[in-house]
């Protein structure tokens, strides 16, 4: 595990930092419910400038006039928005008293993922000791980033330290009125991450939320803003392969990426929130708005491995505004038991010679439903736009469902668009072949599924790829129909 040490170090830092933070604002909680006062309260607690409060209030106004959408192919009980606590002091809730309290299944899963003991303890919040020398590693990372002028900090910090940058870019890609959950997020987001890569800088390491200060307790309304200035490059990792439990059922995050001229952003996500139990009880609702803006000659690449959450509803998109810009979307979505996923992408071609690639692999098992929903839109002036989409679905059981809803809109005669989708069962002859050679059925399925998803897994940064492979296998355990 290449990152373990750094994380631990960072965690140590977090703790120090948090002490300072919590004493400042005196840990308290907003009452349940949502109204303008709550928003003022959040804003005041975070010591936000006036414009941000205005931004939030405006978003709230927009949100109150919106209706929760129901077009997605998912069923869930709509959350009661007045029954949510929108602000609680950022303190780490101890989920387990000691390592012995952690559920055996959870331990088992982490063991299978190959997560080191220290990290296992950290993830479950039971770690007590930290290896001292790892602090220096983290510090060296920090100093290196600083040397290059890279800003990477929590959103709240960025609001205080770089308000001009935040104000300049916040809401430019996902406007407050974009959709129901984006509006809600804009009104009540509590924290998240902010990243700025200056002109011409190539970020030397994968930026991960692991490294970030004050990561824990960012809450259910996370806001991420990544800006790559002209000619910059950054690879950003989000999430974690280890199973994550959270008492907040609703997660409505907003991620905005901005790639200025000649810049490149690679954004990878591994999402493994608690998916609910075998009967579909519990589990996280993951309603995320992710979108990137590509300027001239820039490139944004989304890679996601989605295995968790009871309900997933997300469409990482690219707006290819600049000429010669490139958008990519690689996704593996696995659903098991009673999980529901409605995920896909939007590629909006506005500039000339823009290119987009969509590779989506869905795997449905148990009683789950897995949908791909995508939009490829070629606008009038997008000369020579090019799109290739491939959406494959693999069905493991006869009670699961796989659905494809691509929208293809073309207004330019020089565009070339190809869309292809297939749905099929896992190959019995392939399983047979493996069985014949002494490979157990479970292993065979894992082998086949990994082969099937390889195209996407290959796009993940090294650190993630290995774990993601194991994660796929674990998510599909006992799933042969």
């Amino acid at each position, binding site marked *: 595990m290449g990152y373990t040490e750094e994380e631990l170090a960072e965690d140590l830092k977090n703790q120090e930092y948090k002490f300072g933070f919590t004493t400042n604002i005196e840990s308290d909680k907003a009452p349940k419910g949502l109204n303008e006062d709550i928003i003022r309260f959040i804003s005041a607690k975070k010591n936000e400038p006036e414009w941000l409060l205005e931004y939030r209030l405006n978003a709230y106004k927009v949100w109150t006039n919106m209706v929760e959408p129901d077009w997605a192919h998912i069923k869930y009980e709509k959350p009661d928005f007045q029954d949510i606590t929108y602000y609680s002091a950022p303190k780490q809730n101890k989920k387990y008293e000691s390592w012995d309290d952690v559920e055996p299944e959870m331990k088992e899963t982490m063991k299978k993922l190959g997560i080191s003991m220290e990290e296992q303890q950290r993830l479950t919040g039971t770690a007590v000791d930290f290896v001292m020398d790892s602090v220096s590693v983290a510090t060296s990372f920090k100093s290196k980033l600083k040397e290059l002028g890279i800003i990477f900090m929590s959103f709240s910090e960025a609001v205080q330290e770089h308000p001009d940058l935040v104000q300049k870019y916040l809401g430019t890609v996902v406007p407050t009125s974009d959709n129901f959950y984006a509006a809600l997020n804009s009104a009540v987001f509590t924290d998240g991450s902010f990243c700025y890569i200056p002109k011409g800088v190539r970020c030397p390491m994968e930026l991960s939320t692991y490294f970030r200060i004050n990561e824990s307790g960012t809450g259910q309304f996370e806001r991420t803003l990544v800006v790559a200035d002209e000619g910059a490059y950054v690879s950003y990792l989000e999430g974690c392969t280890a199973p994550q439990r959270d008492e907040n059922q609703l997660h409505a995050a907003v991620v905005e990426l901005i790639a200025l001229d000649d810049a490149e952003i690679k954004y990878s996500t591994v999402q493994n929130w608690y998916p609910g139990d075998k009967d579909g009880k519990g589990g996280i609702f993951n309603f995320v708005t992710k979108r990137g803006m590509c300027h001239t000659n820039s490139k944004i690449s989304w890679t996601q491995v989605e295995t968790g959450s009871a309900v997933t509803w997300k469409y990482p998109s690219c707006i290819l505004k600049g000429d010669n810009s490139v958008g990519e979307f690689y996704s593996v979505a696995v659903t098991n038991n009673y999980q529901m996923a409605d995920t896909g992408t939007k590629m909006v071609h506005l500039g000339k010679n823009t290119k987009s690639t969509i590779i989506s692999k869905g795997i449905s098992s148990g009683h789950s439903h897995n949908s791909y929903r995508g939009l490829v839109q070629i606008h*009038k002036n997008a000369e020579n736009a090019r799109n290739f989409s491939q959406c494959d679905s693999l069905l493991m059981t006869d009670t699961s469902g796989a659905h*494809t809803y*691509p929208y293809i*809109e073309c207004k*330019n005669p*020089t565009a070339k668009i*190809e*869309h*292809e989708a*297939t749905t099929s069962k896992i190959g019995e002859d392939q399983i047979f072949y493996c069985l014949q050679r002494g490979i157990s059925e479970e292993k065979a399925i894992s082998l086949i599924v990994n082969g099937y998803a390889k195209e996407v897994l290959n796009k993940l940064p090294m650190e993630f790829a290995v774990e993601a492979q194991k994660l796929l296998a674990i998510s599909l355990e006992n799933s042969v129909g």
Partner: protein
Amino acid sequence: MEIAQENKVLQFVENLSVGSDLPTYRAMAKDALAGMDFPTTRVEDWKYTRVTRITKQNYKSVEATADASAYRIPALNANVMVFVNGFYDAAQSSIEAQEGVTISAVADMDLEDYLDKLDSIDENVFSLINKAYYTGGAFVRVEKKVVAAKPLHIIHITTGEGVIANTRHFIDVDQSAEMEVVCTHHSVNAAESFSNVVLEGSVGVNAGLKVHKLQLEELDMFHISTENFIQEKDARFDINTITLGGLLVRNGLNILVDGENCDTMLNGVYLTKEKQLVDNHTFVDHLQAHCVSDEMYKGVVDDKSKAVFNGKVIVREDSQKIEAFQANGNVLLSRDAEVNAKPELEIYADDVKCSHGCTIGQLDEDGIFYLRARGLGKKSAEQLMTQAFIGEVIERVKNETVQDYIYTQFEERFGWVR
């Protein structure tokens, strides 16, 4: 919404009238209209097709005469039925009696069979208007084990401005019987008129039905059709939809495959120009196992025209061993043309092979270069390429006479050379 506001649908049908002693199903349809509204582009199914151009007008239903002789397909030895503005024109029709084959024009299809078979299909507001106010239609029934000797050619003519033609047909092909129907749609001086057609049919156990629909109206009228079919066990059903005319055309095709071992083939061609909008919606619902459906739609979109393709395939739970294929190809020829495609797959069974493919692009430049290098003009090279592109679909029409007729239409309308 409920109160005070005037109902647009009722306004729309204001000038239409039907007899007072309506059979129950029509009376029900008429009553249901009061609670309906026309779809807007916010309705998913009508996302790309704005129907206000059609619905803002008040149409009248007028009996008229028009010469149908020009619309007969010379080489096709067929029974012919002519409908002018939705009314049956017996004088121009010719039906040869055959035992076991009933072809008649009826106003009311108050038949138990008919009502039972298709009551599960959702009605849209246009098909409901049709149900309440249709003025004529063909009723075809082919008895058990009878193979219809001749195909039936139904000629629809709309004439006069601001006219609505509500035509409704029903084709019932009983067990192991065979039938073929050609529907052609034409218009004469029918600017701003509206042809609202419903074609329904049932293909019985081991029966076969072929339908060829050729939409050849002038570019100044509206056309909305709803085609509902149900297939029983071992049934074979082919439908070809060729759309060349009409200002705003919507072909809504729903096929319920309600039996095992069925074979369903859907082909479509749309060539649009000027300000046309052609919307093809197809829906294949696989309710039973072991079926094959194969769909191919291709279109060439020119000038300021728009094409919409929405192909939906649902494989229901336990409908195993389904093979469902769908292909949609589009060529854009002009700067102002637009294509919106939405192929959809909803699969609830695991042992299936389903795929769809959709492309939007241009004619192959290398191909055109090759032809031009051999002395062809730019235009004829392009035409040849278009023909080859569309030809793939036409070749799937399993009737050479009809194929020929389609090519003749291309010649007439687009100056294609053969």
